[in-house]
């Protein structure tokens, strides 16, 4: 890469920005869990038990598969962008 680094880390020293990367990974893991629960959980594996409840006239599991999960996805992606803005500032890696 051609971008100049402020300090050249030697191969032996600790990698730079480890804390930032860990925080990022934590955020990603939490979000991926939510993602998996609404998509594979509510809409595939537990769809039958959820269908016992209704939202309006629709069975709940069906509604998750055809509507609900998608709303959650949109919120997740924007939430990630906002959270990462904070993290970038906190760890001083903002552009």
């Amino acid at each position, binding site marked *: 890469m051609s971008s100049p680094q402020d300090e050249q880390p030697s191969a032996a020293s600790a990698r730079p920005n480890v804390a930032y990367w860990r925080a990022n990974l934590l955020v990603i893991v939490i979000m991926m869990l939510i993602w998996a629960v609404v*998509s594979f959980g509510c809409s595939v594996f537990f769809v039958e038990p959820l269908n016992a409840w209704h939202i309006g006239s629709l069975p709940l599991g069906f509604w998750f598969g055809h509507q609900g999960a998608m709303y959650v996805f949109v919120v997740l*992606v924007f939430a990630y*962008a906002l959270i990462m803005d904070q993290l970038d500032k906190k760890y001083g890696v903002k552009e």
Partner: protein
Amino acid sequence: MFEITPLLGFFEMSSTVWTYIFVTITFFIYIYIGWQSRVKETSEFYVAGGGVPAVANGAATAADWMSAASFLSMTGLIAASGYDGTVYLLGWTGGYVLLALLLAPYLRKFGQFTVPDFVGKRYYSETARIVAALCAVFVSITYVAGQMRGVGLVFSHFLKVPVEYGVVIGMVIVAFFAVLGGMKGITWTQVVQFFVLILAFLIPSIALSKMLTDSYIPQLGFVTGDIHDRVDALHAELGFKAYTEPFTNRSQLNVFLTMFALMAGTAGLPHVIVRFYTVANVRAARYSAGWALLFIALLYTAAPTMALFARYNLLSTLNGAKVVNIDEAENDDGEKTGQKIYHLASVGEDGTEKPIHWINTWQVTHLIEFDDKDGDGVISLKKDGDKYAEATIDKDILVLATPEVAGLPAWIVAIVATGGLAAALSTAAGLLLVISSSIAHDLYIHFVDPHASEAKRLTVARIMILLAIVVAGYFGIIKPGFIGEVVAFAFGLAAASFFPIVFLGIFDRRTNREGAICGMVVGILFTGGYILACKANVILPFLFSEPLITPMFAGWTEGGISPESIGAVGCALNFIVTLVVSRLTPAPPEEIQQLVDEVRIPRGSHAPEAHFDESDAEADNP
């Protein structure tokens, strides 16, 4: 507003005239933008010179990615399969979460022209680059084939020609757009196309929702209305399972696997990933993914409502319709062709008969066929195997036909056709760009003629586009499946080849050249081979009359693992192979590990540049 009882014949005339008007206007706009943003530099041709605003890039990504499969085919597939349609809905939206969290920001930081660029650089290997470029071509051509079919359907309907001719007309038009502008022209054209296609989808959805549920918001009418109860009642009467019942035509395992394959495929599709190279910086890439998903969700949350309404309209209109008379189709010279055209009338609850006009044109192009087998003068849609007893209806025409079925005004019918074209054209253009850049930029420039002039490079890229169109057109004509299914195959191939190695390239410092190459090769060969073997008789009809294998693993799940699902297995295989081989072979060199560390932090992303050796003649375009 939506009360129109046109005179016989006038209705068809006017919707055709409207379609001509809309299509001409929109094409004029696309051509104007394409002409305004003609390109002379490769960086503009491939990544629009960088610096596209996040919202605009979101809209362009949405148009790029919402194809004829989303616009035309998906609604029909959902209407036909009820709950099981969730694999498309969640597969094609949930993949964006993967893309936004796991790939897009880092790839933007990396800043290259193409996905094979990333692979070649991260895995310090020209072999890896070649494998990736070949995978990109393979995936994209599969995908374009589905698009060509979509374009062909629209043209066939409003020009009243067979679908095959429609595909050829589509090929010519797509070629024109893609060859002219490259990425710069495509980006801004796609922004316009996004608005065209979203309006084209939402207007009929809203009109239908108002008509059937009395709510102007389809997503609300879906929940509050009683349409699904009425559909389920019709289903019970005709012998179909309830619309909301899960796993009626896919087993639970297949639903899960297909959904996963589509998600990982979305995140691994070269033409989607490449869009994130066009924004200003890492932060813009994150937001851009958000905007893209929001714009996509506008259509995707409306699609299941449209599917339910369309299902209701179709069943309630055609089931029990009276056969008024049957005549024979005529060709242009007035000769009888022997094809039977049914003229039907729907019978209202009070016994009034209304002629059904919309089926006539579809019958001429063979996309709807009736056969009054029992000769009682009434068409029955009772379940007969996996079909209707006395009608055959191509799933892909549902969206195009629905406004007519519901008796919406002619201009809405025309808008839908225009939107279908916008969806197919924008995606086809983006894909063709990937194909041409993979071949011209990743293969030709690197290995054949590294000192080619700028003009020559663009010429090569453009020739490649033309070749790709011809191949895609062939598949559009032979039709290896419905549009949505063909596109699902492309996603499966992307999931099995790109997603694992791009993901591991960022998140696992230890993944090395040997692992990535083995992983890609195993993933794509396994997945491609399985799909080919299961579909041999449709993909290569002149070689095989039977599929080579029936879906395997039937012991695990009913009917075996379907060709649509196999991408998920290929993806898992790729992960395993890549990880294992990487651990058995030497670690990547120190500078590559530093590169990975750098990709992980946003600071210092710059305009895309070409990472070549000094021997390469390519100049940076900061």
